[in-house]
């Protein structure tokens, strides 16, 4: 087991990792930029080291500073959290070279599964379903032929694009014909690569993901699924977990092939497979995240597991204690991300938190990275805390979340608590399920959704 873990992150996830380390009896080193000297993670860690100026590129993303911090403090492992360097195979490689354990997959596994294109190739190889689509299209005729087979609507995508860039939705052959040449020119201009391909477009998809964990002894376990469809511009805002999110048979098979693929490719850490689900319940692999997710607590609430502790244990070579068939999840969990941002304009709202009163009581967990009196700097993401509730049923979990949000007081900075309240109160949220367009189409367009409350 490790003696001392350096947490190469900040905010709530650094606090989360420090808590797990403390419970495992491991000493902790916090790193911080100059503006984070009084941050909560610095206060809670056993030691702390200033690694650079506020700009993340010169502190939390600066590999030499992080490794030097581990060297001078005598840390023997590094937990990268999420974001920052958590998916950098290069960082994992430097750690290995410096005899520091990177708490995550090997650099090879990160490359195999962390890269979108390789991950899709892996998925195809092991029979994990992918969105129907084409390879690179030779010309418009090839495109029209393929489109006839696939059926509209389709996405015309640039091979060099990604993250929504270089993407056009076409709803019929005429539109495809109109779009083809300009898309090609734009792809050449934007990505230096004119190659285009087609993929099925799902009008109102859901975003569902599988939480997996694997050790160095051949054990791979899928410990639950999460619903993450409440998003704004691809940023998740609210997540849920309960059994049976994916339709029956498809569900079991999906887990089986995913577990098999990870075992065969020697994946040995915590990971998440993200799927897009169409209106008929068909699930298609999107990508894999090779690190802990922001929304991991909803899975912890329904399973009783400590995923970060397990992640640390398997990185130290320990055996996974979770059986291949884990105990069935209990009840329903919801997480709301509380961001320092204007609930209407979404503009970030950094500043000093003058008052901070988190909710408590039955079935309520708060994972926070701030405290009353601390400063939220403008340099990093705006996540302040996560409120997670657990109850026997989804309606009860919704009632509990409403109560918890009502209790949550943050003053000094604006937060998205009113927006989360709007989502939770929306009748369409109660009836579910929601697509990834729910927030923008339903909640944000609703002139006075508060009025829907009794």
């Amino acid at each position: 087991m490790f003696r001392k873990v350096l947490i190469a992150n900040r905010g709530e996830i650094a606090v989360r990792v420090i808590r797990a380390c403390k419970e495992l009896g491991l000493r902790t080193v916090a790193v911080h930029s100059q503006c984070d000297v009084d941050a909560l993670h610095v206060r809670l860690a056993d030691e702390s080291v200033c690694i650079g100026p506020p700009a993340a590129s010169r502190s939390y993303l600066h590999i030499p500073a992080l490794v030097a911090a581990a060297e001078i403090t005598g840390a023997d492992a590094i937990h990268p959290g999420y974001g920052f360097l958590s998916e950098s195979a290069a960082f994992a490689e430097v750690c290995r070279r410096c005899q520091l354990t990177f708490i995550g997959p090997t650099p090879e596994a990160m490359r195999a599964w962390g890269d979108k294109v390789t991950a899709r190739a892996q998925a195809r190889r092991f029979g994990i379903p992918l969105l129907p689509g084409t390879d690179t299209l030779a010309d418009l005729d090839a495109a029209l032929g393929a489109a006839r087979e696939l059926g509209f609507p389709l996405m015309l995508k640039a091979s060099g694009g990604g993250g929504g860039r270089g993407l056009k939705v076409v709803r019929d052959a005429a539109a495809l014909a109109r779009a083809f040449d300009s898309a090609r020119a734009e792809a050449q201009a934007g990505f230096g690569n004119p190659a285009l391909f087609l993929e099925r477009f799902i009008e109102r998809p859901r975003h569902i993901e599988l939480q997996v964990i694997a050790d160095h002894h051949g054990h791979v376990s899928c410990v639950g699924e999460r619903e993450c469809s409440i998003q704004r511009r691809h940023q998740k805002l609210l997540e849920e977990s309960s059994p049976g999110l994916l339709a029956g048979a498809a569900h079991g098979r999906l887990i089986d092939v995913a577990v098999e693929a990870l075992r065969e490719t020697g994946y040995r850490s915590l990971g998440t497979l993200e799927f897009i689900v169409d209106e008929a319940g068909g699930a298609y692999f999107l990508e894999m995240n090779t690190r802990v997710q922001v929304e991991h607590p909803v899975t912890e609430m329904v399973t009783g597991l400590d995923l970060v502790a397990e992640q640390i244990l398997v990185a130290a070579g320990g055996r996974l204690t979770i059986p291949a068939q884990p105990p069935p999840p209990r009840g329903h969990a919801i997480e709301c991300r509380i961001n320092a941002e204007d609930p209407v304009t979404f503009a970030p709202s950094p500043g000093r938190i003058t008052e901070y009163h988190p909710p408590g009581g039955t079935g309520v967990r708060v994972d926070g990275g701030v405290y009353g009196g601390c400063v939220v700097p403008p340099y990093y993401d705006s996540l302040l805390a996560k409120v997670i509730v657990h109850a026997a049923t989804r309606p009860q979990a919704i009632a509990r979340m409403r109560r918890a949000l009502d209790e949550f007081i943050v003053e000094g900075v604006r937060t998205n608590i009113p927006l989360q309240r709007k989502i939770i109160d929306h009748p369409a949220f109660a009836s579910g399920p929601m697509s990834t367009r729910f927030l923008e189409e339903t909640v944000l367009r609703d002139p006075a959704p508060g009025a829907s409350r009794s």
Partner: protein
Amino acid sequence: MNIDLLQLKRLMRAMRRYDLDEVELREGESTVRLRRSPRGGDATTTFETAAVAPARPSHFPMDTAARAAASGVPAAPAVDPDLVTVTAPLIGTFYRAASPQSRVFVEVGSTVQTGAVLCIIEAMKLMNEIESEVAGTVVEVLVENGRAVEFGEALFRVRPSR
């Protein structure tokens, strides 16, 4: 004296919060003194530790604490506003000489030109030479040889020529 790191850090934070200039704790032969220099009425978060009379040899926990509080600061609320403070541009281990056998690069009283090597900071097995950005006379060496330094930590004070 049984002061642990966390306690010391809390103490430093409290000093800043309550705007204290000096705290001195003494028990038997051990002394810890924390001092901040007075400043204008504005609520700058600058904070400086001085004269931590070490109750134990200078290694981690203890000096991390001292430095953690000092870091995150331009580290230059010097007594003499004419002095230039040279701070660590990266974190690592501070060496005053190129090797244990060599002479130190500079000591108090040394005259340095711009670009003269003042010290080495070792990080990731690389020896990084830290050069002076001013010409002048070294008036203070703030860190002992072999000690770990954080980003932004004050290393030397130099009085510029003329």
